């Protein structure tokens, strides 16, 4: 093990060719993920969370997507690695839990075949061993009657069961770095708690690093060391989890927190929303990307783009007029 981070993104950007010109989905990201660290990524729908994770793994559609910047994984520069060789890292090195299980699973193959494939090819397990391990994995993600489920097709499972199958597949080869894209969205709270517990255990057992993309701030609060907040393709704030909740600086982060529905709020009330919408990702603009929706906006915000600065150790944000002052 080196002292270098497990994953290091520098000036990482992704754009897509679209009919309306290039779409800048992820812009100039600098992020490190340490050995055994759990980093949460939160942000509005469409802000680039999935593209960032897929991009880091090299799992974007080849034709329409352009990556730039560097991706260093375990001291290898993956931005220079051809896709063919990247495959070697998938499964045992880096693995991903995809956001939409129905599209990620093969609809015409049995769960068992999909789950044991990696074990047999990457870990050269025998069929019987792979099968036994597959059942054990399904058991660990709390799927009832795992032996029967091995024989089923994806459409025969409930949404949450498919999501847990995805998780089992991602964990099968004991990856060192796991990207979990909305891993628990389809799960009820009791199963969610068990699955998150399982991910934490694996992190401690195997020193696995984890990047959790989620909109569930309850999940990030309990299961991450640091949180990066994304807005319009950029990281707008990043801080240790406790620090972020206690002392958020970005007006966007504040707005996001305010819109969490909570069990202790009264029923039947309108929920607070952030009015307006994300800027058009095909039209790069000057100034702060949150300016059109920010309650604290001034002329300066519209004219000059605030840089990401580390105001206190480990806590960086992108705002001219942070909450609570100072910068």
């Amino acid at each position: 093990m080196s002292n270098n981070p497990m994953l290091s993104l520098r000036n990482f950007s992704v754009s897509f060719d679209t009919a309306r010109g290039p779409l800048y989905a992820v812009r100039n990201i600098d992020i490190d993920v340490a050995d055994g660290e759990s980093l949460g990524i939160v942000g509005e729908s469409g802000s680039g969370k999935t593209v960032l994770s897929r991009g880091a793994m090299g799992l974007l559609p080849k034709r329409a997507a352009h990556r730039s910047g560097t991706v260093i994984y375990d001291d290898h520069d993956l931005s220079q690695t051809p896709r063919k060789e990247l495959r070697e890292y998938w499964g045992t090195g880096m693995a991903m839990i995809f956001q939409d299980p129905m599209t990620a699973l093969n609809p015409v193959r049995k769960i068992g075949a999909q789950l044991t494939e990696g074990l047999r090819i990457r870990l050269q397990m025998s069929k019987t061993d792979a099968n036994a391990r597959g059942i054990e994995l399904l058991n660990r993600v709390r799927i009832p009657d795992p032996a029967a489920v091995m024989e089923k097709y994806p459409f025969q499972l409930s949404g949450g069961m498919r999501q847990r199958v995805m998780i089992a597949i991602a964990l099968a080869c004991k990856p060192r770095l796991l990207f979990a894209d909305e891993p628990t969205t389809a799960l009820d709270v009791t199963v969610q708690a068990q699955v998150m517990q399982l991910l934490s255990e694996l992190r401690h057992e195997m020193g696995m690093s984890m990047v959790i993309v989620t909109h569930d701030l309850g999940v990030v609060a309990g299961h991450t060391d640091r949180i990066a907040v994304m807005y319009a393709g950029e990281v707008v704030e990043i801080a240790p989890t406790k620090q972020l909740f206690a002392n958020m600086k970005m007006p966007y982060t504040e707005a996001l927190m305010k819109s969490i529905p909570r069990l202790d709020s009264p029923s039947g009330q309108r929920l607070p929303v952030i009015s307006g919408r994300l800027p058009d990702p095909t039209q790069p603009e000057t100034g702060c990307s949150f300016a059109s929706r920010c309650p604290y906006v001034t002329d300066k915000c519209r004219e000059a783009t605030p840089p990401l600065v580390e105001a206190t150790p480990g806590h960086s944000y992108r705002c001219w007029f942070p909450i609570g002052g100072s910068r």
Partner: protein
Amino acid sequence: MAGSGKAHLRNNENVILRVEDLTMEFPAGRKKVVRAVSGISFDIERGETLAIVGESGCGKSTLGKAILQLPKPTSGSVNFQGQELTTLNKDALRDVRPAMQMIFQDPVSSLDPRLTVAKIVDEPLKIWERGDELWRSKKVDELLNAVGLDPALVRDRRSYEFSGGQCQRISIARSLALEPLLLICDEPVSALDVSVQAQILNLLQDMKERYGLTLIFISHDLAVVKAVSTRIMVMYLGKVCEISAPDELYSRPRHHYTHALVYSVPIPDPNVAARRTTLEGEPPSPTDPPSGCRFRTRCPAATDLCAQEEPQLHEVSAGHYVACHFPRN
């Protein structure tokens, strides 16, 4: 009758949907069946929002689809606006369809990748021959705006170019196109971040007020459910455990499963240690559910009676029904 009781059914002219003893089973090979939904009864009044919550795999999506006859349930009755749906033939069923819409659980895979967003939203309008082309085009813009998408930016793009949450909004716009009377939303906001989630939930509220929409809202997010619903039905392994108004259900869950559910909600505060779930034991197999109360294998209060006799829904306080031999206080 191996149902879960009907004490909670109401009998008045506001009831728009009444489901009785609904059962849905799937073959599971070797003469076994998956008992996904087992004798469920409930009703819903016009303008109500009934939330259905429960463990992953307990039969929520199956129930939602069975109401729409997708496919026809194994047995039981579904009465929509005075019409029995389970005995309707294909053509008659087709005529009721526009009034009942469903937002399916997997947003990305339920959208046709070959069609542009405008076409996807327009499709139901076109099939049902609503308005002329110009009117429809305006309607599509109105719907896209309503779900927080800018028509000018999204009309001509295809679904694979969108994020998970954006796809979810497209499918919501589509399901509202025909201005249904009853909308079944299967996890409509679970792929959305909180701010968009709030927008959609408020939008659904608006639609309720504007069109008198009635909602069935399937969700595992109890905080979301609390914010939007007028009544909550808790399910466990194909059965109803408890039905109540939201405030009462959360402040005083009576069924032991509901209690476990309410107390596993993660708190958005890093200083509160992540709660370990209070629900112990293995989830039982739906092909071989426990006798008596299906929750008994994981219930801290289970006795012999629970294994022998299935508890029936009964009223414990006004409008609050529970199916348990030994409800909590």
